[in-house]
Structures are given as structure tokens and as C-alpha cells.
């Protein structure tokens, strides 16, 4: 989905002048400008150590962008540079074709290290952050009530934050990040420490934000969650970009090299006879690495002929987890 910024007719001239645009961009009195985050060649060093090296990526459409990497790969430093709380050594970060600042984009940020005011009431701190992000009292109250109800936390409104469970504190932290309806939301490990029920609740909120056309950058070590949401990914390793692009394309390029079979009996010998040497036995079945689809179908033919009971046969692309481990596993 392409995101457009819709301007009132009387503000079009001012906007165009400010952004160096031409009159043919105007459509029936409204100017439509494609929004997005554009990062080009950013660098950051601390002392002699290069933390982020010549990083570039674009997020042109709303959706979730996966920023991945091992611990210390440079993800948090990149996020801090995007948020403008850390000066970059070089390169450009633009939102809507302008240098990104707190003034020209509404940021939402859920940091990996969760933090709320432990001694303050939930309602007070949510109001505080909403007001700091430009909302008036009425807007802040309405948004706070909505999200507290949405995250099933209304009963904690007037409680002191330190008395809440870790999961409920995470909910308050998430509301802090989204209470002001941000355009660009950065979620750093959004599901860490959550039980399955709250994980689903958080996922449903992310889906809701996606439906509203938000731009989201998600940094996570939970590859299944990244696969579930991210269309585009970028993997950092020691500050360098080692893989970037559309996740489907990346997986497609890796090829259908994974075969999963759940059947009775031992397949190892039959697999070897088909030239499949990489066989791993797990609790749920056999995981095999194949070179071609023909190898898999030949093995299937053997199973069928042997009369073994077959419950599952699946040829699939590698998971993101497998790609990630394959790329940085040895170094990490």
C-alpha cells in the first residue's frame, strides 16, 4: 500500500515551495506526495570502533520492516540515529524527503530496555507522554482510554506502575509508544518476556496499526514473529549490512532445499540411497536437505512403495531463522 500525505488546498503552495515540488504534482486541488523513510550511507563510530558502516535502506510503503542482527550488530545505534537521539557521523536520514526530525514526523518508540516511571500512576505517565508528543488533555484522555481497553489494562489506570506485573508494565510501555498515533513506530523486541496470551494481544495491536497504514521498524530475535509481519528485512552484522531485501524474494532465492517428512520407521537409509546425506531426526519427524525437488519426490516414491504410513511430506524454502543462523551463526 502506498502512503500519501493529503494536504489542504490552501497549504499546497507552502508545502511545494518548502519541498521544491512542481505544479504537475497537484491532483484536483490536493497534493499527493509519497511518504517514507530513506536512509543513505549512514555511519557511526564510538572512538575507533565502527558501529554502523555505510548503512542504507528505504521504507517506501507502510508495513513492518525487519531490522535484524545479533547482539551488538548496531541495531540500537541505527534506531537511535533514526530517532535523532544520537548524532550520525555521516549520511542522510529523511522522512517525507526532508531530514528527519522530531518536528516533521511523529515517532513512536518501544525500547528494548523497558522503562516507565515506577512510582507514578499509569494514567499520569500516559498523559505526560501524550502531552509531550503534542496532544491536548482531551485527545490524550481519549487515546489513553482506548488503548488501555484495547490491551485489557483499564483496571490498572489509577495504579502505581511498580505494582503491575511485568506483562502489564509492557502493555503500558506499548501504549506509551503508540498513544499519540505515531507515523513511524519503532519496536525493539516487542514480544520479549510476554506470555503467549499477551504475545497474541500485542500481535493483534500491530495488525491494527498496519491496517491504519503505519510505518513500523521491528527489531527482534524472534524470527517467527519477523516472518509473520515483515515484508522487507535487513540483517546487520558488526555494523555491516549482510542481507537486505524482500523476505519472500530472499527465501525464494535460497530455493526449496528443505524437506520435512513425518512417517513411521527410519528413513535414513532410504534418504542416503537417494543421495540425501543431511538428515536430522527431530521429535516431530525427519528434516532433510535436498538439492532438487526430484530427490524429494523420488524419496516419496520409495516411502509409498515400502508401505510405511506417511503423515506429512513438505518441501519448503528455508526459514528466516535458518537463513539468519547460516549467515551470522558462526560469528555470533
Amino acid at each position, binding site marked *: 500500500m502506498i502512503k500519501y500525505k493529503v494536504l489542504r488546498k490552501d497549504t499546497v503552495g507552502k508545502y511545494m515551495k518548502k519541498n521544491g515540488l512542481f505544479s504537475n504534482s497537484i491532483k484536483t486541488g490536493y497534493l499527493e506526495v509519497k511518504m517514507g523513510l530513506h536512509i543513505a550511507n549512514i555511519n557511526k563510530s564510538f572512538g575507533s570502533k565502527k558501529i554502523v558502516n555505510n548503512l542504507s535502506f528505504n521504507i517506501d510503503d507502510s508495513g513492518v520492516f525487519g531490522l535484524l542482527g545479533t547482539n551488538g550488530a548496531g541495531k540500537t545505534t541505527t534506531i537511535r540515529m533514526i530517532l535523532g537521539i544520537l548524532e550520525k557521523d555521516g549520511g542522510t536520514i529523511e522522512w517525507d524527503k526532508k531530514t528527519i526530525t522530531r518536528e516533521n514526523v511523529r515517532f513512536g518508540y518501544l525500547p528494548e*530496555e523497558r*522503562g516507565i516511571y515506577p512510582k507514578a500512576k499509569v494514567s499520569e505517565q500516559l498523559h505526560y507522554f501524550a502531552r509531550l508528543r503534542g496532544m491536548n488533555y482531551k485527545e490524550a484522555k481519549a487515546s489513553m482510554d482506548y488503548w488501555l481497553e484495547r490491551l485489557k489494562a483499564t483496571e490498572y489506570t489509577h495504579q502505581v506502575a511498580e505494582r503491575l506485573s511485568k506483562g502489564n508494565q509492557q502493555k503500558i510501555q506499548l501504549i506509551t*509508544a503508540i498513544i499519540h498515533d505515531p507515523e513511524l513506530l519503532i519496536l525493539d523486541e516487542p514480544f520479549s518476556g510476554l506470555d503467549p496470551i499477551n504475545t497474541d494481544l500485542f500481535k493483534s495491536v500491530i495488525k491494527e496499526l498496519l491496517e491504519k497504514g503505519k510505518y513500523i521498524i521491528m527489531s527482534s530475535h524472534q524470527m517467527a514473529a519477523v516472518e509473520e509481519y515483515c515484508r522487507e528485512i535487513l540483517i546487520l552484522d558488526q555494523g555491516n549490512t549482510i542481507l537486505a531485501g524482500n523476505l519472500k524474494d530472499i527465501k525464494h532465492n535460497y530455493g526449496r532445499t528443505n524437506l520435512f517428512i513425518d512417517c513411521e520407521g527410519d528413513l535414513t537409509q532410504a534418504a542416503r540411497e537417494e543421495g540425501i546425506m543431511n538428515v536430522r531426526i527431530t521429535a516431530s519427524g525427519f528434516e532433510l536437505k535436498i538439492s532438487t525437488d526430484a530427490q524429494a519426490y523420488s524419496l516419496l516414491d520409495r516411502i509409498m512403495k515400502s508401505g510405511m504410513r506417511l503423515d506429512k511430506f513438505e518441501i519448503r524454502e528455508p526459514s528466516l531463522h535458518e537463513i539468519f543462523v547460516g549467515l551470522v551463526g558462526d560469528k555470533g
Partner: protein
Amino acid sequence: MREFLTVLNYTFRQSIRKKAFIVSTIIILILTMAAMIVPGMIKNGTIFDSAKEKDNKQKAAAVQNVYIIDNADLLKQDLTVFNSTFPGYRFELKNDAEKESLMNQIKEEGNRYLLVLNEQSGMLNMDYYMKTYGSGPDPTALHELVNSLFDSKLLGLAGVDEATINKILSPPAIQVKELGQGYVKSKMSSMIIIFILFFAIYYFGYGIAVSVAAEKSSRVMETLITSTKPSNIILGKTAAMGLLGLSQLTLILLTAAISYRLFFPKNFTMFGQSIDFSAFTPLAMIMILVYFILGYLLYAMMNAVAGASVSSSEDVNTAIMPITVIALISFYAAYIPATLPNAGKSLTLTSIIPFTAPFSMPGRLLLGNVSAAELAGSVALLLATIVVFSWISVKIYSVAILHYGNRLKISDFIKIVKSNT
């Protein structure tokens, strides 16, 4: 500006509801009222016994014996003057032969005393026996009484008439009258205000450091700095704590002023000198508040940086140590000259130097010897220092709040300022 006010409003509301602030304010106000009420109670004798009550109490208690062996024949068998001077005791003449037995009684039983008067080569000698020093008639008072009787005897023998003897022996009347502001009156006011300002500036500055460190250790800082500029946070927070301090100080001054009017006795004296707080004029009060604000701002900015240099609240005391040292040196540099009768130039100097001026100048104002030029110079220099320190503090704070791990040192601060200018 709106974000600055939001930070100010939130910090002020959170801080004013803290139990520590409420309890400390109530205690300080009670102590302030007590300081104004107690002198009145002393003067009216409701705390300490009046002379009459003391006398009655002594009478009510068992009367103790004081024996006198008058080998000098000074008293002529007349003990009236002793019994009237020391109403709690019964004075009785004894013979020298009874001395040993009386001394044994005193040693064994106590509650009685012996005074032996001897004359040798025309000089009077006086021995005073008691079981434990501190009990019985005051030795100095006894000595003075016996001495005057001896002087009277000698003058009589020299042929001086009784009227002249009385004149000679009467002590001269003396009244200490200061033509400037009274030493106790003005110096005490000055010292009190130096103390109050030091504690207020230090306490609320310390509050800033703790507050900043708490935001870092709770990791709420990460969310905060994506919501507003670091300068809004440090300035809003500093203003909020300053407003809190100003509210408390104003309450203290108002409580002191009202209870002074209502309870403080007129013509109250201590050590023969009158004590009042008339030096606290409305102008002096306003200048005290102005110097509190300026002094607070200077120290608060440094405290905010100290708070940002550590990762947890437990390390705050170590981080603010250099500021504590500066504050203590400045306090003593202001306080010691204020206690001296002729401090002269040192007091002038401490009221100009920006670090000592917030403590020293208000004290000097109460002494009433500050020219308008000196006052303006002191305020201007202090303001300029605050602007410079605020600028440096905002630079360091913006970087330091994102630093976790080892405490940042002064050399790190210098690097930060250099790389951000």
C-alpha cells in the same frame, strides 16, 4: 515552550506529593514556629522556672545545712546576709574543734557543706568542703560575698564611713549599647539565612541529580528523549524542583514572619544583647528568594549533569561529590566571614564570587552594608555564570543520558563539550 512546561508541570506534581517532601516541610515549619515561640516562653518563664518559682522549689525541698567556722572573726556571729543570699540553705556557725567531725559527716552522708574562714598575715583564706563538686551554694557567689564582707571590714578598720563603704562595694551599673546594628541581632540573622540557603540550594539540587539518575536507571529516559528535546527535560526538571524549593522557602519565611509578629517577645535579650529579626525587611526577603533562585539554578545544572553521568541512583552520591565539595567550601567561605565582627573585604569578595554569592550576599544584605553597585555586580556575574553553566550542562546532559556503564568522568565531559561545539 509547551514541552518545557509539560516537563515542569509533571515533575512538580510528582515531587510535591512525595512523602519525604511533605514530612520535611512540616518539620521545618514546626521548627521555624518553635524558634519564634520558645524565646517568649523563656521570657515568661513557662519553660524555665522564674526566680520566684526556683526559690519556692528550693524552699519546698529539704533545707540543707552549711556550716561556717569563722576563725577570722569576720562575721561577728551574724549570718543574716548568708541566709538571705542563699535561701535554700540554713547557715550555722561551728567551732574549729568540730571541723574534723563535720568533714567526716560531709564525706559519709553529703547534703551538708562546710566553709572555713582563716586570716593569715592580714589576708583572708577560705576553704569550702562538699561531698561532690556542683552541689551546695555556688562557690563563686560565696567567694564574692565573703570577699565583700572582708573588704568592708578592712575599710571600716581604715576609718571609712559606712556610706562610703557601701558605695565602694556596689558594682558599677553597665549597659552595653551598640550604635551600629547589634552584633547578635544582625550576625545571627545573617548566619541563619546562610544556613537556610545552603541547605535549600543543596537539598533541591541533590533532588535533581537523584531524579535524573532515577530516570536513567528505570530506563524511562529512552522513551523520554524520543518525546522531547533533552534541553526541555533538564530545564523543565530544574525549574520544577526550583519552584518546589521556592514554595518551601516562601512557606518558611512566611511562617517565620507571622510567628515572629504573633509570638516573638519584644525586647528579648540573650547574653545581655537584644535579639530581634528586624533586619528581615521585605526587600531583604525578596533578595533572599532571588539569591535562592540564582544559587539553586547554578548548583542544579551541575547536579543534573552529575545525575546523568551515572547509570543507577545508588551512584549519585559519588557523582555529586565534586559539587558537594564546591558547595561546602563556598558555604564556609561565606559563613566564616559572616561570624567575624570585622570581616571587611573577605565578605565583599565572597558576595561577588558566583559560587559563594548565593550564600554570602543575602547574609551581607541583612548586615545592611551593601551598595547598589555591588548588588547589581553580584547578580550580573551570577547570571552570566548560570548561562554559561546551563549551556555546558545541556550539551553534556544530552549525551550523558544515553550513556550506560561506567560513570562518566570530568575528562569525558570535556570531550563531550568539545565534540558538540
